[in-house]
């Protein structure tokens, strides 16, 4: 049995999903798109061995075809034909939540409503007549509290019974009540007209008719209507517009909300202004305050950064690294004692194991950072950040929701890219991902410090600052370019709910951290691991596959020599700098260590002039993201090709900017 779990954002959907499935989850993508699809198996205390799978649909407010999430959800239900729909709604915000329920009920698929947060409604002196609301909607309704795991067993019993017996929602004529005569007539006329087509396409005629009345063109195509029929429908809708004095799109929405208002009037004892609402408004007086809101946000992010990259994450990383290093040393000693072939020993220790080490050393930072991010997200603060920072990002074609991922980019691109998952619009997500590498990550700081302290003594701070600013300025230029040429479409309108603040659930947070860690390890491992083995191989062998004593003879150095001429216009064309750049793809810190090794004794003074040193710094700060970031980008784009295209675009952009700046500096020096 396959069940689709549908509901609004912020209604406790993830919490319910976790409560139902426990740790039996796996993550994939919906067919053809990069919208994440989570599938879980329902755990059951009873000893039946029914296999019940739950597919977690994205959080949506409607089944319109306007956002990716809506299209995905709707296509999933229409094409994959789940055995039932489990619709979770927030009882404290029942009016808007039922809007989706009405559309789901029209699909003619067995359905059960989980009425979440009933405890909160009762706490605030409200109540909902569950039996009556179930009758009015024609769908079984079960009150639950997902956070406290109350009512979950009852819910399971009800949906198993409903879906196994294939009990479809009773047909309720949502358009019948109120002053909806016009809508009612128009809808029924359309239903009548499209009946055969709907049956042929295996779509509920009621759902198809309301979608057509809303002006949903994809539905016209799906039903394969003839031009004649389309014209007749258009005529019907025009008449409707005239009759009700508003366009049919508004008339349908109005009809649904009128029905809901009537249902609510009959079944809901309205709560007094809820405690949660009052508290949230009070908190927002401070956190979105006209003058304190933005400084407070930066303070909070400062603390998150300090804890993630320094105090907790940073220290854990060093601890991790030393443990890994001593483990590698122990293995090396063991292999030497075993008299293993030295080349194999080197391959295992310097190639493979140190590659794994470099992957693992990212892990503490990722986990700690995502702990804070998920707390910010689940508490509701992230929505406030988007609200407060929206205006700043609008000019470059993004919304406030992109601000936090971009900011995290200053720490590390990997979690920054991974954190774009929470952006609801795919366009915004892709654009944000492409801008993240411009935010200079902490791994680049040693490069800036190393080179500028030698080449620009006394001005190292200034040079470093200029690189940070340059990155941000260039990201704006890139954003404007992307907006103009690549992501031409209008962004999804910024119409965002401000949910009440909530205390994040422990289980949900832990599950998310586990997911992120697994995600990172499983997918990044393959890429990073193979890349480190390849780089090690290129460094250690010459073209005749002999082990080299001098790096200059290695394949890597030779490849670097071929590539070097590319950098002549930028002022640095030594094979040493090129080797460092290639190694920098592994990890940006490697640029420093490689340069240091290759210029041992002579120092880097001989490699650079003032102008070429700056151009090298600019190029390093902008060129292709490191392999871990590349793996994350590839993963989020869902395509290796697009991932490579981003890396290439980045490198070309870096070259051009470095070239221009090199020439400019030459003019003045």
């Amino acid at each position: 049995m396959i069940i689709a779990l549908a509901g609004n954002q912020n209604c406790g959907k993830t919490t319910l999903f976790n409560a139902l499935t426990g740790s039996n989850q796996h993550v994939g993508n919906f067919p053809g798109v990069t919208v994440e699809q989570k599938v879980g198996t329902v755990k059951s205390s009873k000893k039946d061995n029914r296999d019940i799978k739950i597919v977690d649909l994205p959080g949506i407010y409607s089944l319109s075809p306007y956002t990716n999430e809506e299209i995905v959800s709707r296509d999933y239900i229409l094409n994959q034909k789940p055995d039932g729909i489990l619709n979770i709604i927030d009882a404290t915000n029942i009016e808007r939540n039922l809007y989706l329920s009405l559309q789901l009920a029209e699909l003619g698929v067995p359905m059960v409503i989980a009425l979440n947060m009933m405890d909160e409604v009762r706490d605030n002196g409200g109540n909902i007549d569950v039996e009556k609301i179930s009758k009015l909607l024609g769908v079984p309704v079960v009150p639950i509290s997902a956070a406290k795991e109350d009512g979950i067993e009852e819910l399971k019993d009800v949906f198993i019974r409903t879906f196994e017996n294939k009990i479809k929602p009773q047909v309720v004529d949502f358009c019948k009540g109120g002053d909806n005569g016009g809508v009612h007539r128009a809808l029924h006329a359309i239903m009548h007209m499209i009946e055969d087509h709907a049956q042929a396409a295996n779509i509920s005629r009621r759902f198809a008719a309301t979608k057509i009345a809303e002006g949903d063109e994809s539905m016209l195509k799906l039903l394969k209507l003839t031009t004649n029929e389309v014209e007749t429908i258009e005529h019907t809708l025009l008449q409707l517009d005239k009759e009700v004095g508003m366009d049919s799109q508004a008339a349908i929405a109005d009809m649904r909300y009128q029905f809901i208002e009537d249902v609510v009037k009959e079944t809901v004892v309205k709560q007094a202004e809820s405690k949660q609402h009052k508290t949230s408004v009070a908190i927002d007086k401070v956190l979105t305050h006209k003058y304190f809101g933005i400084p407070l946000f930066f303070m909070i992010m400062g603390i998150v950064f300090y804890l993630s990259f320094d105090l907790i994450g940073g220290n854990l990383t060093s601890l991790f690294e030393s443990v890994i290093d001593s483990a590698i040393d122990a293995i090396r000693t063991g292999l030497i004692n075993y008299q293993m072939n030295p080349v194999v020993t080197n391959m295992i220790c310097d190639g493979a194991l140190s590659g794994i080490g470099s992957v693992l050393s990212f892990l503490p930072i990722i986990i700690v950072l995502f702990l804070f991010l998920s707390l910010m997200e689940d508490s509701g603060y992230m929505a406030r950040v988007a609200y407060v920072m929206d205006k700043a990002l609008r000019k470059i074609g993004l919304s406030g929701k992109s601000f936090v991922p971009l900011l995290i980019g200053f720490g590390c691109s990997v979690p920054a890219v991974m954190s774009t998952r929470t952006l609801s619009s795919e366009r915004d997500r892709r654009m944000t991902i492409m801008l993240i590498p411009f935010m200079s990550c902490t791994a680049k700081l040693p490069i800036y410090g190393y080179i500028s302290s030698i080449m620009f003594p006394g001005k190292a701070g200034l040079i470093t600052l200029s690189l940070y600013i340059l990155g941000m300025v260039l990201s704006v230029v890139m954003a404007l370019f992307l907006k103009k040429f690549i992501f031409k479409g209008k962004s999804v309108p910024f119409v965002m709910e401000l949910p009440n603040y909530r205390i994040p659930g422990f289980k949900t947070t832990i599950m998310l951290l586990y997911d992120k860690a697994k995600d990172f390890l499983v997918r990044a491992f393959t890429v990073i691991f193979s890349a480190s083995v390849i780089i090690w191989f290129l460094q250690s062998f010459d073209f005749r596959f002999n082990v080299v004593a001098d790096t200059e003879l290695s394949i890597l150095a030779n490849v670097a020599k071929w590539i070097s001429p590319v950098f002549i216009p930028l002022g640095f064309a030594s094979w040493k700098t090129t080797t460092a750049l290639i190694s920098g793809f592994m990890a940006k810190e490697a640029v420093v260590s490689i340069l240091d090794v290759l210029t041992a004794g002579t120092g880097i003074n001989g490699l650079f002039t003032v102008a070429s040193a700056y151009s090298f710094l600019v190029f390093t700060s902008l060129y292709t993201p490191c392999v871990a970031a590349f793996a994350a980008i590839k993963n989020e784009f869902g395509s290796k090709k697009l991932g490579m295209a981003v890396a290439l675009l980045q490198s070309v952009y870096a070259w051009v900017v470095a070239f221009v700046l090199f020439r400019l500096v030459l003019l003045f020096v």
Partner: protein
Amino acid sequence: MKKLSELKVGESGTIVKVNGDRILRGHLLDMGLTPNTCVKVSAMAPMGDPIELFLRGYRLTLRLEDASNIEVFDDEFKCTGNCRECGKRIKAQS
């Protein structure tokens, strides 16, 4: 009649009409900004945009640019009973 974007913080109004392209209108309607709905402008972001609305028991944020597509009667408005656009229910309320 005013645009929703013209209401000041603390003011409220009743929605008369939602304009804009199909996608934007779809979003606004779906979120409950339907004709005859009472909506209050409850706050404004620090940079002056977006605004925060209170309607149907929940809070929604909206950019001024998008809010300018929504036409409202503000609280001052008194229905005379012969305005075609406002529909029956506003009459009933006033």
